[in-house]
């Protein structure tokens, strides 16, 4: 009798707990919220920059378990053995683009840099050298591939944010060490700037000669 009462009480307790959990779930999912316009810090700076070129640099990273054939050292070997015991796969590939731009800072242009010869219908302009800097990165993080199976944990927002941060740091280091990116950008920018300035300033049929400072 006592054991039967105990079993009935236990069943009632579990049922009550389950009902309580179900009660936490709303009958209908709440509407998705639209983004807020709160701002923590805002800076608008007046500039006079003529952007003439931009390159997109793609950085890609993949997440995967360690394979015993690829390990170096004891720690990686132990981690690879643990990964081999896990049930399921955890693989993903992500990428995003970062932008580098080249621009002329018009604030560095002085009246002495433009000489106009109305008789000869000739304009000579000496442009300040191109600057290059980062012009942001894609806010979106492209998921090229995602496969998480078995008992493996999903790749969540926190992990993706940390991954993007690491990729950003590495990309900046690569750009710093490899001049090829800025060389390509400056070459493209110079050609465009020269072509535009000749057309824009030659609007009245003047012949325009374009030179660069520090070149």
């Amino acid at each position, binding site marked *: 009798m006592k054991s039967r009462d105990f079993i009935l009480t236990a069943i009632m307790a579990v049922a009550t707990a389950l009902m309580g959990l179900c009660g936490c779930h709303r009958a209908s999912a709440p509407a998705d919220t639209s983004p807020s316009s709160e701002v923590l810090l805002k800076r*608008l700076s007046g500039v006079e920059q003529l952007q003439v070129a931009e390159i997109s640099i793609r950085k890609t990273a993949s997440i*995967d378990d360690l394979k015993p054939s690829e390990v170096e050292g004891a720690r990686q070997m132990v981690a690879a053995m643990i990964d081999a015991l896990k049930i399921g796969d955890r693989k993903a590939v992500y990428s995003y683009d970062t932008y580098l731009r080249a621009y002329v800072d018009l604030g560095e242009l002085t009246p002495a840099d433009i000489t106009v010869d109305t008789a000869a219908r000739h304009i000579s302009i000496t442009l300040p050298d191109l600057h290059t800097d980062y012009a942001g990165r894609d806010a979106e993080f492209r998921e090229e591939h995602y496969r998480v199976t078995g008992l493996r944990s999903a790749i969540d927002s926190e992990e993706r944010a940390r991954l993007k941060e690491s990729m950003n740091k590495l990309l900046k280091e690569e750009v710093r060490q490899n001049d090829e990116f800025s060389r390509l950008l400056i070459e493209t920018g110079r050609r465009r700037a020269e072509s535009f300035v000749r057309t824009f300033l030659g609007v009245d049929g003047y012949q325009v000669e374009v030179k660069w400072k520090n070149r």
Partner: protein
Amino acid sequence: MRRIQIVLWLILVLALAVGGLALWQRWSSSPAPERVRYYPARVSDIRSMVELQTVEIYEEMPFKAAVGGRHLVGKIALEGHIGFDLEKVALSDQGDTLAVTLPSATVTLRESTEPGSYVVYDTWSDNPAKPKSFTAAEENKAKRQLLQLAARNLHKSGAVKRAGTNAARTVAEMLSAATGRPVKCTLAPDN
């Protein structure tokens, strides 16, 4: 006999300590496990343009998203600029005066490349029995909406109009210096 036993025990303990230290040093100096592989950065596109940019933007804001009872809170930093495509400028003669009309402003807003520009502080679900994580697609959609809102706010606050006024002044000065003619530069009606 007892002394010899003590000495032997001491030697054994010392040998174990040295061996343990050596193993520990080997362990800690071996490369840490890394389940992420990074591929070399490569150029995916190169474009040339002639865009006069008169306002640079930097904003940090909370990033909040809610999808199907799941919530995400973080912080995002945006950077960008307001610019005008000078190749779409319309030029015409009005007697001695050169009339210039600037095209519509382009507001470019992207995630900043400064460290810590995107941080997720917390994600949770209203129903503990259901997963709390957002998919990459859901997160990307929320970010797109935020960027669109930030761009609309720039228009509403008058920043785009002010950028246009500055651009018109710059273009007028440049053309006037080059042509020696008075230049009247106006903005497109939708600026």
